[in-house]
């Protein structure tokens, strides 16, 4: 039974592509595509400045903005403030216009209207706008603070001297520590994306498994096996065992891609967690869930087309809901709650606990049990459906 199932899968080029090549390509593409998203040193915002004031103060503001690591000034392509409504060229997200008279008005106690004009690209993300606004406001506040120091110096020299050493030095105020294996280890795109695509790839056994099963039923091979004294549990066991092995091969192959191939393409290498037991618990739980889903689809589908279509849709839906395609932290709270219903989410959280957070078996026990329970429940339902259909000659 086992060797037959292995032979059928390994001789099916499409199944091999879906099980091994597709997730490997996903891992490569997504690790590279998201490489900068998880890099806090990267310039996130590209902007241009239209300096109509051309003053010392406007130059200082520009210097401050240039010094911020998340900002990257682009050459000004717009000559005057008429560019406010122009289409932004290239990757430009913001155009900051410093109007004439900024040097006089920036420190007024009650400024009339807005000091600066900020144009944002239509597709700019709200959090990016907030970030840029904050940087600009901080820049203006520094100018005001410097002016205040200068004005205070003749009257209160001691206070001015103290203020001299006080600066907006963010580096010294906040120390960031990531909740990863090592406190100072930053999460990389590889650490984030490899677990997602391993989970997604593991559930792709739905396609070959259900296809083979439906073909066996359609051609009466299953009926023939039943007539040869094969019981339903034995029949299912002959399916489950090989696909669990195939799933484990997938996991280790994808891990190898993360460790050895991804760095060759310029992204960070995957680093394994410290818990092999935890990793096995999650991957075996995922295998049971994937196999249970596959067999239930296989026994309920009438045709191969149904099995592949329904299997594909369920896989993509579970992936979309479970935070595979869109990370859960991008989702609103209610959606995150919903995401927790997807077995893919349980598996993903388990893998992230191992790969990213450096946790052990006790941390992944609940998710692993949920996955295994889900798989066993679906297998039991599949057994009942199979028996019912067989008894009805369906």
């Amino acid at each position, binding site marked *: 039974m086992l*060797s*037959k199932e292995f032979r059928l899968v390994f001789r099916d080029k499409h199944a091999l592509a879906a099980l091994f090549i597709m997730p490997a390509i996903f891992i490569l593409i997504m690790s590279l595509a998201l490489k900068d998203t998880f890099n806090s040193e990267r310039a996130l915002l590209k902007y241009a400045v239209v300096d109509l004031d051309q003053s010392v103060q406007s130059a200082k503001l520009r210097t401050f903005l240039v010094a911020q690591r998340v900002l990257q000034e682009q050459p000004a392509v717009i000559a005057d403030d008429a560019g406010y409504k122009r289409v932004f060229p290239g990757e430009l997200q913001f155009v900051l216009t410093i109007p004439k008279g900024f040097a006089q008005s920036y420190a007024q106690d009650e400024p009339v209207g807005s000091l600066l004009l900020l144009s944002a690209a239509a597709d700019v993300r709200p959090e990016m706008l907030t970030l840029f606004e904050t940087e600009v406001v901080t820049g203006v506040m520094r100018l005001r603070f410097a002016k205040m120091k200068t004005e205070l110096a003749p009257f209160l020299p001691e206070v001015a001297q103290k203020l001299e050493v006080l600066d907006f030095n963010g580096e010294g105020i906040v120390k960031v520590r990531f909740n990863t294996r090592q406190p100072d280890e930053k999460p990389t795109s590889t650490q984030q994306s490899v677990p997602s695509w391993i989970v997604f790839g593991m559930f792709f056994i739905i396609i070959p498994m259900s296809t083979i099963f439906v073909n066996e039923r359609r051609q*009466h091979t299953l009926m023939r096996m039943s007539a*040869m004294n094969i019981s339903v549990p034995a029949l299912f066991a002959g399916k489950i065992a090989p696909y669990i092995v195939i799933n484990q091969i997938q996991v280790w192959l994808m891990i190898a891609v993360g460790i050895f191939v991804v760095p060759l393409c310029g992204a960070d290498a995957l680093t394994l967690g410290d818990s092999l037991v935890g990793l096995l618990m999650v991957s075996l739980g995922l295998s049971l869930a994937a196999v249970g889903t596959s067999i239930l689809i296989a026994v309920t589908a009438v045709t191969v087309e149904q099995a592949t279509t329904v299997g594909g849709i369920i896989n993509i839906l579970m992936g979309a809901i479970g935070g595979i395609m869109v990370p859960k932290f991008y989702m609103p709270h209610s959606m995150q709650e919903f995401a927790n219903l997807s077995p893919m989410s349980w598996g993903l959280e388990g893998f992230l606990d191992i790969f990213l957070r450096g946790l052990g078996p006790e941390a992944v026990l609940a998710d692993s049990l949920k996955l295994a329970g889900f798989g066993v429940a679906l297998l039991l339902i599949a057994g009942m459906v199979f028996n019912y259909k*067989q008894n009805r000659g369906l």
Partner: protein
Amino acid sequence: MIVIKNLVKRYDDLLALDHLDLRVGTGVIFGLLGPNGAGKTTLVSILNGLTGFQAGEIEVFGLSLSKELAEIRRRTAFIPQTLALYENLSVIENLRFFAGIQKITGRTLRHNLDYAISVNRLQALLKQKAGILSGGQKRRLNIAIGLLNNPELLYFDEPTVGIDPDGRNEILETIRAFKNDAKTVIYTSHYMPEIEKICDEVAIIDQGRIIRQGLLETLLQEERADSVVIELLHANEAQLRELTQKYADVKFVDATTLMIDRHNSSKMGALLTVLEAEKIAIKQIRYGTTNLETLFIRLTSSGVSDV
């Protein structure tokens, strides 16, 4: 070999087998005929333990099917109409797989493999993938898989569907030869000439009951005496079918042949009058018939040759 008493099988409100009785002796090739939905497949499924039943008793080899199914299965084989094999596996891989799941090993495996391969002339094809075999070769492999346990009783469900006449004859010869090995064969087919060619005994099943059973030759002889055949020169098939619907005792055989029960020949006059009125010329009127198909058509309620 097989004794069935009062067998009842229902699918919800549908009575698939209606207190069916049947006996099949040892070493015969037994044809099971019936229109679509008559209950043939259900009966074969029950005999293989693939479907349950509500009432009745079944004994195979003198063993109760309900109590000793596993032992009965060890001594029988079911060869389905579809090619129940793996196209991505080679011939020998298919044979070894199906032998493996029946736990056939060692000397028995070697002996039974040799038997299955030689009977079906698969020696030269062992390493070929099943998917690239011809239709006839696949059918032979399908049969070979059924021989792996060297069964005493074989169930064949339309084993010649979709293959050319040469391939069909080869398979029929193979099945006929099982008689020499003292094997019993239950054979269902849509092709009456096949049944006539290889079967010793037949049973006709209709609406879940056996309506006629016996030695093939005896049934045909009885039939010759029981029916009147009207052969026509030229006729419109639709027109003839319409006629047979009007006259319940008249059976449509083909586009130029009608049949009427000899005991209802009092209606012959009325039928001849209608044929004359419709300007349908009669070629000849004769007693009896010589083939199974007409017997089948006369006996079954469908009145069509698609069985």
